[in-house]
């Protein structure tokens, strides 16, 4: 029957991670302000019993959070890239890893499900796969390069597997501190499941998962760029040493790709998206906001050269501003 749930999961049109991407930091903040302002008086709340916990265990999927994540990592890395480390079968409790070679994951049975904690976020995905397989689980766990503010968050889930988040497990660039420390899976689950977390991108590596370009921690945080002229935004970006390898603009309903030099400086920026470290993609058009009748920029031959946008194979690192 889990097969059914899995299938349903696969036709989900939008993941939460994608929803998070769609809701820009400032749009979200604006909505919160309006909600709070909508009632003259703040509602009654019980006195806060919360004290913020700082967890020392758990995963820091963030590079910066890793320091506290035990010395186990060193052992893991020393196992080398080649043959994966044998997994001690006693790794089922998080307390006593009597390890010769540390497990990349720990498994804890809780009632009708198993909680899997990620001990080593930089392990080869094959090792996760094998440790899952040892428990009879078919799970792909992977880390994909994400833009800074979503590093540490879930970007893709398939099958009956849910992330375990822990508040205070980390600090994320976007301002939260609620990060995944592992995944939960039903005991005896036989189907395939997959989950991907965003990890920090390596130098020059293109993000496969992104947040809004102006989210806290992103390349354009704090910049005003919507409805601004392209030339002005490029100049501001240049000051931050941020370049624009590609543009997107709409022709009718279709999103088209353009490259540096093809977009007039007097066009307007509609939106932006992180591309790679120090690079952003700009959504542009001839009007301050997107208009239904927009057409191609004058120095793009409307016939052939630009094609409907799809993630291009290569990134042009030498993008220079046009003006």
């Amino acid at each position: 029957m889990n097969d059914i749930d899995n299938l349903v999961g696969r036709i989900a049109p939008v993941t939460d991670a994608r929803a998070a991407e769609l809701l820009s930091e400032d749009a979200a903040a604006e909505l919160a302000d309006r909600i709070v302002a909508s009632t003259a008086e703040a509602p009654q709340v019980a006195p806060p019993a919360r004290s913020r916990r700082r967890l020392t265990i758990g995963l820091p999927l963030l590079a910066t959070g890793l320091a506290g994540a035990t010395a186990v990592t060193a052992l893991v890395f020393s196992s080398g890239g080649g043959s994966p480390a044998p997994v001690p079968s006693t790794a089922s409790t998080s307390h006593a890893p009597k390890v010769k070679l540390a497990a990349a994951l720990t498994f804890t049975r809780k009632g009708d499900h198993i909680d899997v904690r990620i001990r080593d976020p930089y392990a080869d995905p094959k090792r996760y796969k094998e440790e899952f397989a040892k428990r009879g689980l078919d799970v792909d766990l992977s880390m994909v390069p994400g833009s800074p503010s979503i590093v540490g968050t879930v970007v893709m889930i398939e099958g009956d597997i849910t992330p375990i988040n822990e508040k205070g497990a980390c600090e994320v660039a976007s301002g939260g501190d609620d990060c995944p420390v592992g995944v939960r899976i039903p005991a005896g689950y036989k189907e395939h499941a997959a989950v991907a977390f965003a990890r920090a991108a390596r130098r020059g590596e293109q993000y496969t998962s992104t947040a809004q370009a102006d989210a806290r921690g992103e390349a354009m945080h704090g910049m005003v760029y919507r409805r601004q002229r392209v030339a002005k935004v490029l100049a501001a970006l240049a000051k931050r040493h941020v370049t624009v390898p590609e543009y997107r603009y709409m022709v009718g309903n279709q999103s088209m790709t353009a490259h540096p030099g093809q977009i007039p400086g007097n066009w307007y920026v509609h939106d932006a998206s992180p591309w790679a470290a120090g690079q952003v993609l700009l959504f542009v058009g001839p009007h301050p906001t997107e208009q239904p009748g927009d057409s191609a920029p004058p120095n793009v031959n409307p016939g052939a050269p630009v094609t409907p946008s799809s993630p291009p194979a290569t990134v042009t690192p030498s993008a220079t501003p046009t003006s």
Partner: protein
Amino acid sequence: MPATPKASRPPDDGRRRFEELYAAHRAQILGYALRRTADPQDAADILAETFLIAWRRLDTVPRDAEARLWLYGVARRVLANHHRGARRRSALNLDLAGRLRSDLAAHHVPADPGELAPVGEAFRELPEGDRELLSLVGWEGLDNGEIATVLGCSRNAVRVRLHRARRRFARELERRGASAPQSRTLATAHGESA
């Protein structure tokens, strides 16, 4: 400057608690809405109204992990109202919907790619109640107990109804000659980049 001392219960506490709640769950609620309505305006409304209700009833929002379930329960009722045609375009989200719309266009994901198309069709054939249960499991990843909380019914009722829903879905799939597709490509349906 010393902070001005407030009454024993500073209004800021409410605001802070709300903002924590909002930060922790806004993407989940927006995701919930976007998975159930194709219209970004509706999704924006559902997000806005759900958190407006949460703000107004902050005292009744559970403080633990149940907060998410509570919010799903509210979002569910807001969504049902939208489906019933009782649309109150909330003035709260004036340009949020516009932004969502352009962002959705930029991040366009084709519905039911390839092999999943018949699955989507079969799913849409199911009675509303079945779809709701199956999607709470498959999309929000809730278990029976959590679904019972969201729907306000007993766990046992969920178990029984879910069992039937799964059976009906399986039959519907079979009828269409669509069974679980074999190839499971990890990233296709979720290619993220801009």
